[in-house]
């Protein structure tokens, strides 16, 4: 057991725990806080995979932008502890959990039993080089230039859509 493996197991356990807590919490603010902890552990996992730029972007974009927006909306709509929604335990809920468990079993079966036998056992030696800002920038402005430009169009559409949807009628 190297320290890297131990780190992986710690981060994986943390990520799964916070994800489960996020689903189980009654209070949406507590859900959001668990989600933020989950995003931090996922960013650390990206670092284990030598993806430095994406680890930083994960924290900046997800915890810095998306979760702030989510927390802002939860507080704006005041759906905290006192006006908490009535959540039901019923057949649909049980079916949801069973379906999710079946799904993870299927995925585990695919990974362990029908996977490509040449599936890699250790990181590629180039892994540390391709996660840097330099390599990512080269790829985004070279091979992926068209998708990159379309992404900017998508963000523009999202800005306009959000303003139009959320603004007061009249």
């Amino acid at each position, binding site marked *: 057991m190297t320290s890297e493996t131990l780190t992986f197991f710690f981060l994986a356990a943390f990520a799964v725990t916070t994800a489960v807590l996020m689903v189980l919490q009654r209070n949406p603010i507590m*859900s959001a806080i668990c989600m933020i902890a989950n995003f931090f552990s996922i960013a650390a996992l990206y670092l284990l995979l030598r*993806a430095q730029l994406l680890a930083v972007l994960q924290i900046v974009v997800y915890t810095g932008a998306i979760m702030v927006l989510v927390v802002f909306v939860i507080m704006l709509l005041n759906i905290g502890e006192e006006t908490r929604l009535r959540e039901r335990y019923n057949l649909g809920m049980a079916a949801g959990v069973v379906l*999710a468990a079946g799904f993870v079993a299927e995925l585990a079966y695919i990974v362990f039993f029908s996977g490509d036998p040449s599936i890699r056992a250790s990181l*590629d030696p180039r892994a540390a080089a*391709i996660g840097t800002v330099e390599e990512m920038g080269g790829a*985004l402005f070279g091979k992926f230039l068209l998708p990159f430009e379309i992404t900017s169009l998508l963000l523009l559409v999202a800005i306009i859509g959000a303003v139009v949807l959320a603004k007061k009628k009249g």
Partner: protein
Amino acid sequence: MEIPLSYYLILSAILFAVGVAGVLTRRNAIVVFMCIELMLNSVNITLIAFSAYLGDITGQALVFFVMAVAAAEAAVGLAIVIALFRNKQTVNIDEINILKW
């Protein structure tokens, strides 16, 4: 011992399943929305793991685009939630059924 690729795939599968369970069981639109973000993130782990283990940058470029789409989705999705709350005074997805036939 190095971490094999399958560990990351299993972690990603578990996180995705937790997200699926959340979407299917929770009734609060914003929590459902966060569960969708969780599923996007688990797919990102898979993409980055394959990218690192195969030494190919395509997976990481794809994650970059997924993050951009997630940000756009967050803005529009939460705007829809605010518009719905303004009209129906609720974010419970059982009570939001105006598109149901």
